[in-house]
């Protein structure tokens, strides 16, 4: 019995090498590209140009791919095969993250210089991304395998790693300032990973703003007023220049939820003082965000209701701060802004968002239930301009309220 077994094993071992390849070779992926009906055209932050294929190459190119949940991605790849005696064809497949695999495909080896190339044609994966769920793959791995015997045995060939964003629903349609920016997808999918509902997505995306550190996809800070006189007011410019005004952070928060297909109208709220006339003349048209220090009341006789007076020559604002010639009110470190512990704080208006009845201020990472809560929680004073090159202030917040105008962004 023993001898029979040994004989059988010998035959097996003797026969086996005939079927197996007996040549030396190497194979590596040279490029990978993604497509498909659920594919999202992701834009570069700085110039808004759309990333195009390939998404991955052997020399270091790494571009993300985006898909809508429930869709099936299409993947294609090219390989370089080095061998002195290559077969005419071989089979390729890939095992992917979450068992999203690429099926076997027979590819032909084409001579190219001193090696061979072969192309795994754009092919639908074996299953879709889980429907109705945000996902964030960092990385999504493809373990590429080849077979020389039409799929009987598989040999590991190469591994490619990719960043893939999966949105819960189809993103809302792009507009002048809402676009499928790389950073928007990065933050939204990373923050809301696993979420399926609107409220879950909104809540998780809002978390991005709570610690006052908002970074782009590369890890660079997005500053709320890196310079006191930043002129940038649109989301594209926030992502491009990373130094922007309040409107851009409101837009960023809304973009994070719109990219997931969360629809909320009347979401964009512009707030400014009611143009109430002051007893000294002029109308209230400024407010001071905490903290400001109030010293001498220079105008307590001329204008007792707005007794604090600041004067300036030419301009009162520089990149690094406020420059007043005389100042009863002086800016102090107060409420932290995004990536900035002392942003600009002397304004005519401010931009926040309103979702499901709650006011969200993405610049400071705070929420309010009522409009009136904003002045009591966040302001130190109202301002008026009685004459050129001056501003007068009061700390009596009861003298005015904020008015809001609401649009849909």
């Amino acid at each position, binding site marked *: 019995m023993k001898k029979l077994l040994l004989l059988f094993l010998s035959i097996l071992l003797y026969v086996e090498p005939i079927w197996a390849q007996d040549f030396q070779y190497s194979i590596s992926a040279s490029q990978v590209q993604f497509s498909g009906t659920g594919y999202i055209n992701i834009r570069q932050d700085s110039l808004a140009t759309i990333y195009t294929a390939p998404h991955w190459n052997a020399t270091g190119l790494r571009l993300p791919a985006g898909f809508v949940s429930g869709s099936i991605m299409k993947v294609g790849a090219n390989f370089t095969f080095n061998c002195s005696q290559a077969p005419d064809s071989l089979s390729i497949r890939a095992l992917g993250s979450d068992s999203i695999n690429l099926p076997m495909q027979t590819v032909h080896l084409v001579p190219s210089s001193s090696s061979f190339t072969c192309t795994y044609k754009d092919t639908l994966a074996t299953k879709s991304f889980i429907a109705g769920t945000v996902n964030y793959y960092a990385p999504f791995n493809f373990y590429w395998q080849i077979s020389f015997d039409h799929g009987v045995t598989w040999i590991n060939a190469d591994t490619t790693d990719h960043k893939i964003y999966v949105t819960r629903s189809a993103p809302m349609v792009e507009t*002048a*300032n809402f676009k499928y920016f790389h950073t928007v997808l990065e933050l939204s999918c990373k923050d809301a990973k696993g979420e399926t509902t609107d409220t879950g997505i909104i809540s998780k995306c809002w978390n991005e703003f709570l610690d006052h550190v908002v970074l782009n996809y590369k890890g660079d800070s997005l500053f709320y007023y890196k310079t006191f006189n930043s002129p*940038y*007011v*649109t989301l594209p410019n926030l992502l491009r220049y990373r130094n922007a005004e309040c409107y851009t952070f409101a837009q960023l928060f809304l973009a994070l939820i719109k990219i997931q297909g969360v629809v909320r109208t009347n979401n964009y709220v512009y707030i*400014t003082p009611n143009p109430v006339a002051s007893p000294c003349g002029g109308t209230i048209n400024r407010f001071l965000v905490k903290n400001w220090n109030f010293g001498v009341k220079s105008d307590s006789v001329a204008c007792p209701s707005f007794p604090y007076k600041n004067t300036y020559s030419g301009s009162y604002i520089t*990149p690094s701060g406020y420059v007043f010639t005389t100042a009863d009110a002086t800016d102090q470190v107060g409420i932290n802004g995004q990536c900035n512990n002392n942003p600009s704080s002397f304004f005519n208006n401010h931009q926040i968002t309103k979702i499901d009845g709650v006011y969200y201020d993405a610049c400071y990472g705070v929420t309010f239930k009522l409009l009136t809560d904003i002045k009591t929680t966040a302001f130190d004073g109202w301002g008026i301009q009685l004459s050129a090159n001056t501003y007068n202030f009061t700390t009596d917040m009861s003298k005015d309220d904020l008015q809001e105008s609401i649009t849909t962004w």
Partner: protein
Amino acid sequence: MKNTLLVSLLLTIFAQFAFAQKAIERKIIIEHAQFYYCTVNNDLQLAELHNGNVQQNINNVSAYNILPVGREISDPFVPLCFDINKGEMLAINWILNSNNSRNDALKKINLAEAIKSQNLNPAQVLEQSFLIPPIAAYEPWQFMLRRNNTLSNNFFDIAWGKDNTVLLALCNQNELFIWMYNGSEWKHSDAIPVNFHQYFSLIAVGTKIGILSSEGVLNTYSVTGNQWKLQKQIKYPMNLQTSTLVIDKDNQKVLYLNNNDVEQSKLSLTQLMKSKAKKIIL
């Protein structure tokens, strides 16, 4: 160091945009054989005034002056709202900036002085845009907010009326009001029901006032005291997105040109108007 960083940044932005052809905002105005039109720098939102002689090709005017007024970059799009009469520009300064008050948006700018002060850097011009006092408080805007502070199909435009009155048309939630300011008080029409989904243009020639919709429908109004009356409605085969208005104040005429004809023209403005412009009759 003062403003140095911002100025360098702003000049870089301007350099990038210097040679890109930008769209003409709404219209070309002709006065005393000079043409004026504006483009807008999308990063700074500021208007760039181009002017020359009507015997010139408007595309050959490369230099421009940055003005302390502008418009925001947003949806829905509302182009720069302005008019020029006797060297004075009337404009709605709709720049989005935390220091810019919408209540102070209505500005009058002496063009000769604005051009003279071009030694200001863009950052200073931007600051000027919200420091220049308004001609009047923007009562029409406050009136609109009191009626409804949710903005939907919110469009507006401004024009010089007869005897230097200020005409302003403002719509929100499908209600249009036409306003007139005589230097001391505002008066307005009753609510005019409209169905605007894109911007309109306000046109004034003599005592005639027209609202030209995006789709080319012109409603002409007359006003007597507080009574605004629709005189006529004409549909023109044009739309505002693909056309540029020409307000010829020298001949009290309003015309329009196809944008392609304007952009590709190698003719003087006079020749271009003669060969391609179509009339709009108020």
